[in-house]
């Protein structure tokens, strides 16, 4: 009797692993295919996406970077992402602290207004934004990408940091106050250094969302100001038909996020499944 049960359990585990491995392969194979293709010649494509390249050709990356201008798109991406992540993180740390640690008149209403920003699709703001940026003379500048994304990131950031600060022990604040800190110093000298994990999660999530942002960039800017995803989607002409160069470009677009993900997976997953509604 016991043997049968044991055998059944083993068989079931094996079946489970087999299924999981199939789905794991389905999830990551396409990216491996793209990566390998990025190092091939066009004539090697016939061997299928998962054949190893005969020699690892870096020319595809040079062509994508210079010929197809992905170097410039990369520059735009960095110019936009860095200020968005830094400013949004600082501003939402401050407001998250206020919402999480202080009770004040109107706090629930204000919080509700900010949570609204987690739910509205960018379609709901894009037309007036386009109009406003036009009248401010900011359309087709990096400001048109940075300011709205700081605002949208602020909504998630506030929500995230509020939850974090709510969970921090009050005694920390009490002790700091006894030592003579004021409200401002309590945040930056005491709580901020202790908030590394929550801040790290916030930073990697904001980085990913801003790096991958498509719609806003598509609408607001043209030419060299485009960031990597839009540059890739709108690539036309000679290089668009060159599969290995396209694969190299796609690798350039995804690599920064992949590298971050490899190091901080738990932060990504925790942030995205924590129930906060943002996409």
């Amino acid at each position, binding site marked *: 009797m016991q043997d049968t049960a044991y055998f059944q359990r083993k068989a079931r585990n094996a079946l*489970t692993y087999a299924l999981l491995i199939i789905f794991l392969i389905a999830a990551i194979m396409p990216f491996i295919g793209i990566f390998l293709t990025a190092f091939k010649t066009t004539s090697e494509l016939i061997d299928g996406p998962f054949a190893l390249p005969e020699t690892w050709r870096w020319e595809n990356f040079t062509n994508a970077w210079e010929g197809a201008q992905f170097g410039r798109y990369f520059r735009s991406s960095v110019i936009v992402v860095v200020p968005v992540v830094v400013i949004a993180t600082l501003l939402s740390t*401050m407001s998250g602290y206020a919402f999480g640690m*202080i009770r004040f008149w109107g706090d629930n209403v204000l919080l509700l207004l900010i949570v609204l920003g987690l739910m509205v699709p960018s379609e709901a703001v894009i037309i007036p934004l386009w109009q406003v940026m036009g009248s401010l003379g900011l359309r087709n500048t990096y400001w048109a990408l940075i300011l709205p994304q700081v605002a949208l990131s602020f*909504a998630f950031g506030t929500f995230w940091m509020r939850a974090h600060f709510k969970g921090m022990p009050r005694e920390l604040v009490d002790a700091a106050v006894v030592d003579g800190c004021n409200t401002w110093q309590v945040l930056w000298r005491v709580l901020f250094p202790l908030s590394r994990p929550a801040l790290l999660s916030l930073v990697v999530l904001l980085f990913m969302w801003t790096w991958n942002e498509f719609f806003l960039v598509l*609408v607001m800017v043209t030419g060299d100001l485009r960031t990597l995803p839009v540059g890739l989607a709108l690539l036309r002409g000679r290089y668009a038909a060159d599969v290995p160069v396209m694969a190299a470009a796609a690798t350039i*677009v995804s690599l920064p996020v992949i590298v971050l993900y490899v190091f901080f997976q738990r932060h990504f997953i925790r942030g995205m499944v924590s129930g906060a509604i943002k996409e």
Partner: protein
Amino acid sequence: MKKSFWKRRFDNPPYIRPHHAYLFILPGLIIYAMFVLWPIINTARYSLYDWTGFSDPTFIGFDNYRELWHDEDFWLALQHNAFFVLFFSILPIMLGLFLTSLMTRGRLRGMAIFRSGLFIPQVMSSVVVGIIWRWLFAYDGPINEFLIMVGLESWVRPWLGDFTYARYAVGTVGLWVQYGLCMVLFIAGAQAINEDLYDAARVAGANAWQEFRHVTLPGLNQQILVAFVLTFIAALRVFDLVFVLTRSGGPGKETIVTSILIYQQAFQRNRAGYGSAMALVLSVIIITVSAVVMRLQARQEEGPAI
């Protein structure tokens, strides 16, 4: 749970001055108000105007909405969004539940690897995802090659250009992107289910289905709701994937979705007022459904834990 207004004010330790809170919130709130709140209000306002985006707007009351009601393209786009709810939301949740139920029977090693791997499509740029799948679905791409290899030549077709199957092809990509998210959510939820409940079920002689039905599923209520909200929003908002996969809704209008229509109306056909009306309807649908589901979630939280 709720405390009275005065009681809540009293909660602050004596050294905290409540009005300091406004100073901490203000810098972010100003930017947020300018670039999120004010635009939302303006979208609602513009939707009542006939406006090209350049000219002087003319007030036309609810004419945009009247036109919307009779706009076949809009209804078609909404239908496609609803179709994508099946692929972005319902199927990934079912698949996620299935895989999770397998994993809750017995302890397995190496779950962290599966979790991290299955989540990768979620963090990737949807443009890259779209380009990869455009190649996979290409006429001479790997999927058709595979079909030829296993002797199904008659199934070979340019998937994304096929009038019948393009929608299913786009949906498949959505399923591929979303099931990892659902699974990760459900695994996290299942780990929080009391082990004793499984033991009790086994002692009572429950089979795999009964165990799933009476222990795993009720324990995952919260996670299913969260997964539904996240994936439902993704299905209604889908833009990048369609933009890349079928070059904005082709063949014909077979994969056109609401956000693509909004983009075309507002930025290609210079009908900013009409586009605003569409955007508002879409937002109202999204916010209503999210709010209702989150309400459900909140209500469950108050109830007894399992």
